[in-house]
């Protein structure tokens, strides 16, 4: 597939400040090396950035204390994930990964140079933790 056959991502980047190091990143889990590669491949197959290939996976950042971009709201929104990875932005940056503010706030794309960086991203995401909203469901008996 040529790069011309993919959608340009640049128009979908939000014009906003980069998230600060202390912001919590939400990534549904459990994540494996195969999943990181698979998800990054899907992004690669669909998009380019400034005409160049891009590899990346989607995450959401808990940018606010309240509302749809709060950690609580994101965990609720992604209740389908029984576990979640909750690294800080600093952990991803220190491992060499950038976060692009793509599409609707607070969605970001964590970019990789290629599939060979998948294991480093997996390590940077850290251990998965239970998502309290997966089990805590009203009306289920």
């Amino acid at each position: 597939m040529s790069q011309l056959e993919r959608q340009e991502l640049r128009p979908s980047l939000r014009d906003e400040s980069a998230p600060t190091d202390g912001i919590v990143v939400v990534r549904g889990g459990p994540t494996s090396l195969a999943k990181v590669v698979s998800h990054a491949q899907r992004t690669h197959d669909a998009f380019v950035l400034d005409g160049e290939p891009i590899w990346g996976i989607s995450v959401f950042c808990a940018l606010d204390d309240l509302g749809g971009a709060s950690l609580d709201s994101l965990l609720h929104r992604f209740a389908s994930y029984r576990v979640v990875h909750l690294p800080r932005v600093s952990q991803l940056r220190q491992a060499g990964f950038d976060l692009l503010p793509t599409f609707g706030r607070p969605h970001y794309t964590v970019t990789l140079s290629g599939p060979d960086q998948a294991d480093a991203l997996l390590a940077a995401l850290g251990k998965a933790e239970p998502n309290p909203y997966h089990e805590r469901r009203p009306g289920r008996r």
Partner: protein
Amino acid sequence: MSGDQEGGRPVITVDITCDLMDEDETGYVWTFLHEARDPGLIEPGAIVVAGDEDAPAVAEVIDIVEKPAGRIVHLRVLPGVIEDYVALITRAANSAS
């Protein structure tokens, strides 16, 4: 859904594989139509199981659009977790019998 259990959880067969966190400019989850187990199941309005075996979700197919890279399916993930829908159907079926 099969009757097999994995770690106490039912094993789910998804209709269309996707990353439930992949959203695009529409605000919906997107994936390629070729990720569907049976593409014939995927049509606007259809209720499907999307995601993967670790994180399945009930979703509505919103549309299928032609994009430069191929046919993209947009999905609206329905509230709750898949076990809620299993419990709902079980409860409704038991009530009717």
